[in-house]
């Protein structure tokens, strides 16, 4: 074996830092009651106790990682190329979701400018085809983008298959059920 991985040590140190911040800063600053509280002349458990217990779990885990398990066999190695691929995919999904959120309102805006109309996406979110627009465009982008990333190239066929898959999902969720709403129509 070529050189042991030290991922447990690094992970352990990160966890220790996180646990220290959690216990030392985050919980004291962002929880309004203490570990125990006195209300109505009764001592009760405050809101800070449970997160503190969680923090102690993390602390213990960090300590074990940098001591007992520091030299453990079979520690995974991080491969930067793999991480890069996943980061790219998450970024793509992020963009697709932004597109999903704003395509509808954007289209309504364009129609308003062109036709001098006075439409509002919020009031159209239960009206076809407006309500499908964001989901269709964003969803197709998400699926075909992921496929293209794995294949390393963009194929028209993959895009068509993705669009078909999204249409099928719209059919599954929206057509039979009156009260299911596709993203992003609950937010607007």
């Amino acid at each position, binding site marked *: 074996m070529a050189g042991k991985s030290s*991922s*447990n040590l690094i*992970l352990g140190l990160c*966890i220790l830092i996180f646990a220290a911040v*959690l216990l030392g800063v*985050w919980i004291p600053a*962002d*929880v309004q*009651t203490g570990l125990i509280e006195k209300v109505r002349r*009764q*001592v*009760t*458990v405050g809101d*800070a106790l*449970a997160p503190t217990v*969680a923090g102690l*779990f*993390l602390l*213990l*885990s*960090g300590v*074990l*990682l940098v001591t*007992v*398990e520091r*030299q*453990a*066999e*079979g*520690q*995974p190695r991080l491969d930067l190329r*793999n*991480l890069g691929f*996943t980061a790219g995919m*998450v970024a793509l*999904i992020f963009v697709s*979701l932004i597109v999903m*959120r704003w395509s509808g309102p954007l289209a309504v805006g364009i129609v308003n400018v062109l036709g001098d109309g006075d439409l509002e996406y919020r009031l159209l979110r239960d009206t076809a085809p407006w309500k499908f627009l964001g*989901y269709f465009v964003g969803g197709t982008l*998400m*699926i075909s*983008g*992921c*496929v293209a*990333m*794995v294949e*390393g190239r963009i194929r028209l066929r*993959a895009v068509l298959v*993705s669009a078909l*898959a999204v249409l099928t*999902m719209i059919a*599954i969720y929206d057509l039979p*059920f009156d009260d*299911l*709403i*596709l*993203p*992003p129509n*609950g*937010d607007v």
Partner: protein
Amino acid sequence: MGTLDYVWMGIQAVFQGPELFSIFGVSISVTLIMILGGFLTGIAVGATPGLAGPIAMAIALPILISVFGYTPDALLPVMGFLIGVMKGATIGGAVPAILFNTPGTPDAYMTTLDGYPMTKRGKAAKALRVAHFSSASGDTFSDIVLIVCAPFLALLVEAYLDLPEKTALLILSLSFIAAAIGGSPAKGLLSTGLGLLIAFVGTGEDFYPRLSLGSPMLNQGFPIATSVLGVLIIGAVFKEMETLWRQRQSRDIASDIRIEGDQRLHWADIRRLLPYVGRSAVIGTAIGALPGIGSTLAATLGYTVGRSRHARTKTEGRPDFGEGAPEGIAATEAANSSVSGANLIPVLSLGIPGNAAAVFLILAAESIGGFNPGPSVFRFTADTVNPELVIAFGLFTAMMIANLLNWTIGGVFMRSMGVMVRIPKHILLPAVLLLTLTAIYVQETRMEAIWFALGFGVLGYFMRVLAISPLPFVIAFILGGNLEESARQAFAATGGDPWFLFTSPIAALFMLASVGVIVFTARKTKERS
């Protein structure tokens, strides 16, 4: 209302539920059809590499809830479907393992060891029959144990455990799960600690949503669907996509499978397999009853025990384990299938989920309402009907119906599922991703939920990269609220006794065991390294 009355009402609740249609004047209840639908879906999903039961359960849940609504009437059809998926996926997973040397579900890995060699010798259909027989036997055995044990365990809990003991029991389960899953106690503790922490964001007794960083987005905390689906499913999709990208071109799959000679399962075969099936079923059931230890360990143990018996007793000329022994398939499949029923023992009697399938059953119960898995379910009331108990017996009935389907049509359907392996995974997985995100949105109806799920997906991905099991995270997240609540109540109920976890002998014993289990596994890891 006697016990038998409740059993009978549970059976009736399944058969006489809302009618879907009738054949020759016999009305077919919607629950029956849902169990069948779930079972067939489960086989297909299990037989598709890259998909597994939990994914189908996650995607189906919001659709089912919108069909059946948020009423107690929805519980049996919805949970019946999920139970069907759970059972179907168990036998479906063996199909690609045997035919293509690719396990459809992680716990079917050991099945490839003897299944694929049998296929290469032209005995594919026989291997599938062995897998089906053993799986169905193990599953049925496990369900019977569940039905007998869960009510008694629940009654014991209610009779002997007060609030402090219940708190201590939750702590024991969590530390057991942290120590047992993933092989390393430090990583188990990490996963558990994160799950607890996430569960505590935005919740709590005070009106200020704690740990919300002042952001209204976190006011309501993290919805259960976002963290569970994010870590379990989206995280898995990311990891699988990365693997596919690394392999770039999908492996070619041998297209023609030779079938030679007698493929039937004879009585003599069954007699020879039974000792293996029996042992593995007991192993799987015992492991399943402990929360957190999954079917993969059961399969490994069952296979190991089977191998040593086989080495002692085999007659000359029969294949060894690993060379295409039907006994190897039987030992594996009986063990991993008998986990699923027994896993519901802690769910129904204590409200503690032990594996992903159980997590989704709890998710269904939580989302629909009217059924809170836990000891209060098994209150045998005399004058009034306890509707939760009727549901519990209805669930047992649903499981037995699914077993019946498994014995009758399961084998035929399973053997036709070889085609599923041809579905291109790199298109299927992104579609699953979008379906999962949509499923979350449909339930939560706000974009934030999708952002949370994506974030949890990244967390789940890193956990997989760093060999940290995500299951303790999910279980801790689900139990975190209960833990805090019961600790609070126990503390208040004992009049603010700071030693409430240690004053009663049972609670003190549980606490001692929770520390012991961590120390014990930590020392074992140390010795190994």
